[in-house]
């Protein structure tokens, strides 16, 4: 592992976006920051600003209004970056399958790198998801390939 990869592994700055979740997963993400779980041990801080963030933690099934926000936040993050869908409804829509205003998961809007299961996802699982994502992040190229559009949804 070279220095840059190591640094990426050790300094994940987090942006958390609630894309219409029930708050369940959000408060668990917040729990991760607090003493009992303390993800700052891994250098993670919740920066709250896409321009500073390396990791986007998204919760919620994404609805028709916050879809544009999610996309915009993703675009504003600098490469390299990863997206972690936290919780069942971020992964697939979960319990909101009959809801007219829902899009059915984060991957309908932006590419997702890691899916974290659970409703609500437990802090431990979120930490595992974060670490899994960082392994991917570390290996990403520093400069995006020429012509690669950063924000293209997969579907």
């Amino acid at each position, binding site marked *: 592992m070279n220095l840059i990869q190591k640094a990426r592994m050790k300094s994940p700055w987090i942006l958390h976006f609630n894309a219409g979740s029930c708050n369940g997963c959000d408060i668990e993400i917040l729990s991760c920051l607090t003493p009992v779980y303390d993800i700052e041990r891994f250098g993670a801080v919740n*920066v709250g600003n896409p321009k500073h963030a390396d990791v986007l933690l998204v919760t919620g099934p994404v609805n028709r209004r916050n879809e544009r926000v999610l996309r915009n936040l993703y675009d504003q993050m600098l490469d390299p970056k990863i997206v972690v869908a936290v919780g069942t409804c971020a992964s697939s829509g979960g319990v909101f399958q009959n809801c007219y205003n829902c899009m059915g998961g984060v991957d309908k809007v932006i590419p997702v790198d890691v899916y974290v299961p659970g409703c609500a996802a437990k802090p431990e699982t979120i930490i595992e998801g974060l670490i899994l994502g960082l392994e991917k992040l570390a290996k990403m190229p520093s400069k995006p390939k020429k012509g690669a559009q950063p924000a293209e949804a997969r579907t």
Partner: protein
Amino acid sequence: MSTPEIAIRLFAAVLLAPIAGMLLVGLDRRISARLQGRVGPPVTQPFYDLVKLLAKQGDTTSRFQTACLALYLASNVVSLAMVFLGQDLLVMLFVVAFGAVAYIVGGFSAKSPYSQLGTQREMLQLLTYEPLLIFLAVGIYLRTGSFLAADVLRLERPLLPELPVFALTLVVVYCIKLRKSPFDIAASAHHGHQEVVRGPLSEVAGPSLALVELAHWYELPLLLSIAALLWATPLWAGVLLGLACLLASIVVDNVAARLTWSWMLRFGWAVAVPASIANLLYLYATRGGGS
């Protein structure tokens, strides 16, 4: 000062001090975490943050802001070097102010509402701490008869007993400069949980942000060495004093809520400035002590 000595001192200021600064920044976070009952990041965390930021894609809303931040970094380097070279303290503080102005102008040149609002608060912070630092320099002058940092080192007695207020105002300056509660008004330390997001740095990202992080590595030794002037003989006691001020500001950060800028202005100009002046007046009244 002979040329090799100048070279050694410059080397210490430009290359060694920031390493110490990096560790101090890391220690700061670590201690905060411990006060909060957490483990916290490793002390080398700032180093990894810096490397990561440098390896990120470049981006900015304003190239001009990046240039300003480079000037900010440069002013920190120069002012630290000036202290190490025993230069005039007033001029050194002007250089510090130069950096602050560059930082502010940069913040204004990013047209993000949060950057603008945060920068306006940054300006008020400058208004609060700038006089405190200059008063400190004048206080030192009144006992040493010189504004040169080099002359402080020649003293036989520590200055602190006669300049007690300035140790306290220094803690205030530390809190403001290191963005700690109750004065983390323009932006909080490494996270933007503020109504103004991250203030002047809201739009600064990637390598540009790395400039700021690097500047902090110089800023901490600089603040420390200002404190050290208050107990320059022996010098290690001064360094300890600086560390004590730093520790005090970390503790204050953890036992206080963030207050508002209007409170800060009132506190600065109704408490800290008068207290500094009182100390100065005492020095004037008992003039002749050291000079």
